[in-house]
């Protein structure tokens, strides 16, 4: 059940969706993730390909353009919701951590 799996996002999933806030071709996503995460996160090409396929099937991203072997994607409304949900979940986690760790 792919949809249930996508309820919480793994780190690479989160960053791929972040990178697709703006239209981007598949190959460039890897570079963009490195920029966004300041080199902390790297997503391998095999993993990226598999995740894009998964996202597209679940309707979280939309294919926008195909030029030869280059395919471009952008996040869908549904994907945006999932991303936002994850973002708020992370904020909640950080804030709850703050109340304990930064007292």
């Amino acid at each position, binding site marked *: 059940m792919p949809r249930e799996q996508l309820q919480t996002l793994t780190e690479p999933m989160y960053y791929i969706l972040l990178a697709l806030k703006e239209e981007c071709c598949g190959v460039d996503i*890897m570079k963009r993730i490195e920029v966004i995460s300041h080199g902390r996160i790297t997503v391998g*090409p*095999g*993993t990226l390909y*598999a995740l894009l396929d998964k996202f597209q099937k679940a309707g979280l991203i939309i294919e926008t353009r195909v030029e030869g072997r280059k395919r471009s994607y952008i996040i869908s409304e549904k994907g945006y919701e999932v991303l936002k949900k994850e973002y708020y979940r992370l904020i909640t986690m950080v804030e709850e951590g703050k109340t304990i760790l930064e007292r």
Partner: protein
Amino acid sequence: MNNKKKKIKRKMFFASSYEIRAIENFLEEEAEKGWMFERCSGMFYVFEECEPVKLKFQVDYFDKATIFDTNPESNTLDYIEYCSESGWQHVFSSGKMQIFYSVQDNPVPIQTDEKMKLKLVCKATILANWINWILLPLIWGLFNVREMVDELLNPNYYFAYSRSLTELSEVGFVVFWLAFTLLSIVNMARFGIFCFRNKRRLKNGLGIQYYSSKNIKKYGVFHQIYLISLLVLLAALFTKDHVSLYLMIEFIVTILMIFLISKMTYSKWANRKANIVIMLVFPIVVANALIFAFMGSISRGDAKLISGDAIYVYSTDDIDLTLEDLGVDKPDEFLYEETVHDKAKSFLGMREVYSDYYNTEDNSYGYSIEIFSSKYKSIMDTYNQLVLEDEYYTYTGLTATKNTWCSDQVLYGTGEDVSMYVVVQDGITFVIEGHLNQEQAAEVSSYYMNMASALTR
């Protein structure tokens, strides 16, 4: 064009498809020694001579590729493109397996998500191995078990034909199967441990742990020794039993043929669907044709292969023409009377054997008749030729002579102990052997000929 032929090296390396770290290390070591990986099939790896280089290799599995792809399908090309953009050059693919190399010192691995990687590797391994791990031992085992049950349920089986578990060839086949199954189980267990251990490791936030290179090398040596000693054992068993040796060779040749034809028919121009048909259906048809072609060179006993497996009947009532009918007196003392009626029929031909023997302590007396018929002239010709060339008759000192007592084409021979009479008619052949004189043989043949002509009509 570069006409200089590059040197090529082949090397064997025992590593299952999930032991990717070991394969990668192996390819990297070879590249450092000046041998660039080119292709592989099973455990055979082919290398081409090159300048010694430090390369990083990566074995990956692409889920959407299948063994039926000839050129990479468009999905696979997309994936290869992604990899080449991040510095991974594609060298080889076979089924789901994809092999890449990179010249960079510290390239981004193709799979960065260990959970997804473990899943891919496990799935690909199961797909690549289920036939020889599960299907083959199972089918083979079922055959063996059926045979054993047959023998256990039917004690007469031991006397009827020289086919019993105590016979070397039978033992050989069972030993071979057990050894094969054991190896499959050990391989599966190794894989199972790998899967479960790593699932637990990933749950605890650790990375995938592969079997060490040392462990894999040791296991490879075990593999080799195991297979070689098994072959030696089998050879020792089968040199004592020629028919089984032939059957064994036939078996191995058939498997090799299926493999070769399937490789040859794998065509570069066909698409995935056509390849599924070509690679699965065509080899089976050709292999079957080859079995029939090969049969001529084996032995008369293999007529069974044409007519199918026999149904054995052991009651005396089924023997229509007993020794007493032929005017032979029952000996005063005999160990047992052995009567067999063995009948088998297939769309290619029919084979029936009737026999009636008395076995006394130091001798046996009786006759047997084998009736073989087929609608196909070529099958009849092959069978007749085999009958006349049967080594057994020359061994017992029989010489074939043209007959005088029957208008049909008959050949017969008389030896010290046994006589043999062969009656060849259109589409049907009778082979009568035993301790009969000409008149008795003529009676037997005319009796069964009447019966057979009623049957075949």
